[in-house]
């Protein structure tokens, strides 16, 4: 079974600064996908960034980038130039590419962006 661990329950960052959220995972599979989802108080789960395990290049989406270390099973999210709208719960998640797209989520990190 796959597990996803987020060891930072809460974090805060000053507006315009950079913050990194940590995630580790455990799997015996070689092909899989990793994600960061954002869940603001409105509850809508929004996909922030997606990484395919067979790709060595780290994914980037505007101000969001990841540091994917496959051997270490680590998948951190860096948010640059933090904005007030980034305040939300952030979930690290995993899908086995050979499965039926069942998503395994971590417990989440609550990020507060301070003006």
């Amino acid at each position, binding site marked *: 079974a796959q597990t996803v661990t987020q060891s930072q329950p809460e974090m805060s960052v000053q507006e315009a600064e950079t913050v990194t959220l940590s995630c580790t995972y455990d799997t015996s599979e070689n092909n899989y996908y990793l994600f960061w989802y954002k869940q603001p108080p409105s509850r*809508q789960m929004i*996909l922030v960034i*997606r990484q*395919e395990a067979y790709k060595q290049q780290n994914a980037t989406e505007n101000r969001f980038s990841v540091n994917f270390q496959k051997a270490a099973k680590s998948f951190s999210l860096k948010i640059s130039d933090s904005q007030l709208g980034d305040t939300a719960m952030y*979930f690290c998640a995993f*899908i086995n*590419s050979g499965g039926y797209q*069942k*998503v395994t*989520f971590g417990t989440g990190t609550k990020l507060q962006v301070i003006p």
Partner: protein
Amino acid sequence: DAGVTQSPTHLIKTRGQQVTLRCSPKSGHDTVSWYQQALGQGPQFIFQYYEEEERQRGNFPDRFSGHQFPNYSSELNVNALLLGDSALYLCASSGIRVGEQFFGPGTRLTVL
């Protein structure tokens, strides 16, 4: 494209009652998954429907059942409600592209 929609938004039930939650997938998606998210926790996978059949199930009791209709919409049914069933229930739809799941806004269920 309306994206994934869920109804109702909120629901209050009492212990022992039964509840039905509904989900319409994003246009072009044929697979629907359901998740339970307790307060302060990450979502937990309940089950997934494809071609009107349940094809994968998480660690949830038989009180949780579902259905998928020919138009790919889906229902989640929970019987004999317990206080511990109070949670946000999320529906996600997906299509051919692996890892591309879109979530609905959720239904907040409160069991008194």
